[in-house]
């Protein structure tokens, strides 16, 4: 199945319906793979950080909800890794477990530890940071999925349609937490403001398309980087306005750009833990 895509003033790109077709155009494939790694690695690492809250969430209802959200988010990562698998990148399990930190394309914000201590020793995790990181990321993800639903790569557009339906509930969940905590007074508000600052210091990295930005839009895999940023900014301004806080202006990327493979020690820590069991016997069937 082929149909012409023409949006905006860009060149017309044929819709690519199968991995076999995508592989025929080397440049297209390279851009597509890059985008898929960003999407997969983002969801994967954030779902891992989220899973570290299991049993530690503020109350039992939240523990259930958050576990469910993490399971869904990990499912989204699997879906993207399987798309990579179909393009000849290796098995989804290998892609999730065996790649070194320098090969990962996730944004740095999403790999940062939940707080001090570790899951097993003195986990002094920051709930405010968790709420803000998730809420802002999930709004971003919702917008990204809306754009991906129009992607020239049909399997990706279909995956985005599916994921977006689940994402609806995630955004709803974090919105409740965010507004309740920000609109309350005292310690909650102070801690939320500190968390917003911390997230804002790195969020430009989440928004970055990385080195293949031009090819992403050339092949209409996703809308153009700057247009997307503008859309995101409009949405975030409303979020801040409703919460009664000043919009802090454009976000930064102080710790660097994860899309280019730059990462912090926190990612190594995460990878060594999450692949510990897998590495015991990579051939085993779980």
């Amino acid at each position, binding site marked *: 199945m082929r149909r012409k895509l023409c949006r905006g003033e860009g060149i017309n790109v044929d819709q690519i319906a199968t991995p076999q077709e995508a592989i025929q155009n080397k440049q297209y494939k390279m851009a597509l793979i890059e985008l898929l790694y960003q999407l997969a690695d983002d969801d994967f690492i954030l779902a891992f950080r989220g899973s570290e809250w299991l049993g530690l969430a503020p109350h039992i209802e939240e523990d*259930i909800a958050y576990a*469910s959200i993490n399971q869904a988010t990990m499912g989204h990562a699997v*879906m993207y890794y399987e798309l990579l698998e179909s393009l000849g990148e290796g098995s989804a399990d290998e892609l999730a477990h065996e790649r070194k930190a320098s090969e990962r394309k996730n944004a740095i914000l999403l790999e940062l530890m939940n707080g001090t201590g570790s899951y097993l020793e003195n986990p002094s995790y920051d709930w405010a940071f968790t709420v803000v990181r998730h809420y802002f990321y999930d709004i971003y993800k919702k917008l990204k999925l809306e754009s991906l639903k129009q992607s020239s790569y049909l399997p990706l557009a279909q995956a985005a349609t*599916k994921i977006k*339906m689940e994402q609806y*509930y995630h955004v709803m969940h974090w919105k409740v937490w965010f507004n309740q905590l920000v609109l309350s007074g005292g310690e909650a508000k102070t801690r939320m403001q500190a968390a917003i600052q911390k997230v804002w210091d790195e969020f430009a990295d989440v928004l970055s398309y990385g080195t293949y930005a031009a090819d992403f839009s050339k092949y209409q895999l996703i809308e153009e980087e700057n247009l997307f940023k503008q859309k995101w900014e409009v949405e975030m301004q409303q979020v801040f306005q409703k919460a009664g806080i000043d919009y802090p202006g454009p976000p930064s990327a102080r710790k660097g750009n994860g899309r280019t493979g730059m990462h912090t020690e926190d990612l190594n820590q995460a990878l060594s833990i999450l692949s510990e069991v897998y590495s015991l016997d990579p051939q085993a069937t779980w």
Partner: protein
Amino acid sequence: MEFLQSKVLQILENVKDPEIPSVSVVDLGMVEDIQIDQYGRVKLKVLPTFVGCPALEIIKKNIIEAIQMVDGVNGVEVEFVHDPPWTSDRISEKGKVNLKQFGIAPPPVFIKEKELWDVECPYCGSHYTTMENLFGPTACRSILYCKSCKNPFEAMKPISTLM
């Protein structure tokens, strides 16, 4: 061939969601397409409910085992596809009845004007219910409470492409 097709469909009525043992994969609306060729090879397209559902592999195994038992079948292939995406309105009327029997309300209706979910208690039929947690014990279920008969219960999460 048509006979075989109906046999396969019939046997699929016995393949249940392992997490909801009263409802078959057919009534959940998960079976999108069944193709049988002249050699009796069966190819199914199945829609996953939620992407991260851990029961998917078990469901796949159960479908294959069930269909293999049918006389005249010579191999089964199950493929999970995402197009069309599964939505909660694919659950059949029979599926809704069977969900209730298991203590799970069918997908509630969201009344946009009031920003409220309208859910009928599967035990007493009252609409005097509250949402306790959008997220339940599995990805596809929420936890609710009936203020009439004082029972906690679950409901299937509504899922639609409009979301």
